[in-house]
């Protein structure tokens, strides 16, 4: 069988929650154990983000999948709660290593089954939040914005350092030459046409996952997962819209206007962003009132890696 390639996404339903059920949630439940075997190594910038959090911080991993960042967080003395839609993946996540029990045993991680737009967290409970390779599975701009809002809402809002920080990763439309994802092959082929004409690239795609034949089966199965591929600037715009909808003043980079903020004004500052290995990422922080810039620590891209 030839290797399946990504294809343009045609929503199977006008209701995005129904469409995502068959093109995201059902797929992850079906491929969870196999998917998890392929997801071990933490991505370096996320490792660095976690390592820069103050020890004993409590964080949220929204769209945690198999919980590979639980292990990373545990190694830096952090506590992290995994949120995901997939029961199959959470069952793997809770048993990830890195959480110390008594007598040297491994303890279980805390997991919550919910959507990325889950708004049930009490405000102010998390010191940091990450959402890695998850928000691109939501099929409308509003649903993606609500996911970012849901990530910001439970963050601790402090009037002094350390401020609560967040990091978001999504798949990029702009694929590097060394990419293994081959998104450039995505093309619209009219019905009945066998040769792929040169046509528009599309941002909303179905990406195949090949599940090799299991015992008792003769043929491998191909599952199609929905992705929204982000273009340059789109992730920043998404974070800004979500922040404005939540009533934040959005500060850019070394914007000094923080000085005019009053004590109860919520602000969100984008600390760094970039493109790395076919993904767009963004790191930000939130706080209240005047921005304290003393003892500024450099964001994760400080070694020149990533600015895109």
């Amino acid at each position, binding site marked *: 069988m030839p290797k399946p390639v990504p294809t343009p996404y045609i929503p199977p339903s006008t*209701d995005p*929650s*129904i469409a995502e059920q068959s093109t995201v949630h059902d797929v992850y439940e079906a491929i969870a154990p196999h998917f998890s075997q392929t997801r071990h190594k933490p991505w370096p910038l996320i490792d660095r983000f976690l390592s820069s959090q103050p020890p*004993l*911080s*409590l964080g949220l991993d929204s769209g945690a999948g198999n919980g590979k960042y639980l292990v990373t967080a545990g190694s830096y003395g952090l*506590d992290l*709660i995994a949120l995901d*839609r997939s*029961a199959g993946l*959470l*069952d793997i996540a*809770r048993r990830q290593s890195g959480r*110390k*029990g*008594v007598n040297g045993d491994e*303890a*279980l991680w*805390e*997991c*919550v*089954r*919910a*959507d990325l*737009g*889950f*708004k*049930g*967290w*009490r405000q*102010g*409970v998390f010191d940091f939040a990450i959402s890695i390779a998850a928000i691109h599975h939501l099929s409308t701009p509003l649903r993606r914005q*609500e996911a970012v809002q849901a990530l910001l809402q*439970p963050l*601790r809002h402090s009037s002094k350092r350390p401020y609560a920080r967040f990091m978001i990763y999504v798949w990029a439309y702009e694929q590097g030459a060394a990419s293994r994802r081959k998104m450039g092959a995505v093309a619209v082929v009219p019905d009945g046409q066998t040769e792929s004409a040169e046509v528009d690239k599309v941002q909303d795609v179905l990406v195949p996952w090949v599940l090799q034949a299991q015992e008792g089966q003769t043929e491998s199965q191909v599952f199609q997962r929905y992705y929204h591929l982000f273009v340059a600037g789109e992730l920043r715009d998404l974070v800004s819209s979500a922040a404005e909808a939540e009533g934040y003043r959005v500060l850019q980079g070394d914007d000094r206007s923080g000085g005019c903020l009053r004590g109860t004004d919520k602000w969100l500052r984008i600390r760094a962003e970039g493109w790395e290995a076919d993904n767009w990422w963004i790191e930000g922080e939130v706080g209240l009132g005047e921005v304290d810039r003393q003892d500024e620590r450099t964001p994760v891209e400080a070694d020149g890696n990533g600015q895109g």
Partner: protein
Amino acid sequence: MVRLITHNMLACHVRNCNKDNFPLIFSEVELVIRETPENLDFIRRFLPKLDWTALVDTARSLGDTTLPDEQPVEMTDDQLRALHHVLMEMHVEEGNMTCRGCGHVYPISNGIPNMLLAEHEVGR
């Protein structure tokens, strides 16, 4: 696991359910106590975020009466240890969490609370 620390952070999120939506009330609970290495600094750090009354009421509903009605201004190490036990070692493996406001039931299975709602129940 639904430890009580996590329970202390979770509210009902059904559309328009704004009253009595926290804390969620446990029922038909299978409770497991798992000894966990003591980290009192972590507990101290969590104190400003804690909803004390919700925690005390919930712990008592599960049979633990070690916490006082009012949050002590200065916590002794013994009090922090009691808090560690309640927050970190009491795990609800199976059962339900019910909203006092709207009656929605969130089931807990295999230690994982299911907070999913039907699309029409989700608040925007």
